[in-house]
């Protein structure tokens, strides 16, 4: 792969990760379950116009929700395995 392209992908990955972590932090701050989350996710999927298949987007966000729920509930697998070598926490 073109090194510049690889660099751009790595930069995008870091940004996606930073935003996902921020999302989890935000939910941990408010410590509340949003009853409108299902409708919000449906709305998000309706807005999706990019090349990713809809079922993949849905799965990604279901996993995001699951991860955020675990962080909010204080049972994050990431925190539980904080001392584990890279890759084992997932």
């Amino acid at each position: 792969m073109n090194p510049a392209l690889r660099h751009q992908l790595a930069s995008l990955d870091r940004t996606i990760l930073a935003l996902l972590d921020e999302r989890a932090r935000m939910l941990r701050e408010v410590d509340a379950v949003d009853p409108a989350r299902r409708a919000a996710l449906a709305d998000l999927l309706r807005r999706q116009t990019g090349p990713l298949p809809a079922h993949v987007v849905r799965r990604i966000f279901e996993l995001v929700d699951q991860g955020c729920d675990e962080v909010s509930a204080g049972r994050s697998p990431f925190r539980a395995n904080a001392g584990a070598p890279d890759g084992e926490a997932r």
Partner: protein
Amino acid sequence: MILRMKQGTPPERVQALRARLELRGLRTLLSPETSRPIFAVVDKLPSDVREELERQADVVEIVRPQGDWRLVDRSFREAPSVVDIGGVRVGGGRVVVIAGPCSVEGRDVMLEVAQKVAGAGAQLLRGGAFKPRTSPYSFQGLGVEGLRFLKDAGEAVGLPVVSEIMDAAELPAFLEHDIDCLQVGARNMQNFTLLKAIARVGRPVLLKRGLSATVKEWLYSAEYLAAGGCDQIVLCERGIRTFESATRNTLDLTILPLLREWTHLPIVVDPAHACGIARLIPPLSRASVAAGADGVAVEVHPRPEEARSDGPQALLPGELAALVADARVQAVVTGRTFPAARR
């Protein structure tokens, strides 16, 4: 000149060096930096003294600031400084939103705006009680009563408050009402008597850039505050006068990365006064944070058409919420954090 010494240099060696310089009639000022000894030499260094300092094993760097300031120079601190405004930390990799009405107009409307500001996720509440209006016939603010309404609203929603002070005679009222941050407006940026008086009271200061002030003049004003004892200074870019008349002023984002090199002080941007048009504020806020601002200061009003000052540049509460969401995303994608409000 600013002398940066090796990490771990014993305090007695730092003190001995300062004493030698002071014996030569050179005043020195020690940085509060804890990671390494740093001190400024206020007076011009004679060449023989400079040569002697360059030979000192403990001195790793002698920095000449870009202008005739010392305490606000970037090299006077190891890391960018962080200002604590009523428990909200500004600077050091955080992005904050300061929001509120241009003028405090009354108890009820102030509380209404405060609730919207807190609900949107902004961290600091602003509101003008003493208003520096261009025309003497314009609304001049509610004065001391306005400070009380602002503070009460801030306490009701759990947000520290920022308000503009125009005259040293107002200081007792600001302290009595426990205003968390004193704003020095653009018109008073070079009111050195006011700066000296404010510096003595030990409150955080939001120092706006003068309408036609250069960056150097702005930093000299900040140095007045620092030299007077204030180490809690936030700079605020709010647009400058140019030949352009399509907007109220011209937002000078050019200076944000430059200020990062010249000073350790946090910098926030007030895009509202820069452009004077509410619909331009969201993209200018995004640009400000993307360019490195530590925060944005905006005006919000539930009914801008009824605002007693600067209605055309006031955001609606829903627009503020969108701006705060944007600021959070911008903070994260630029590698910084968006702290939760203090509540």
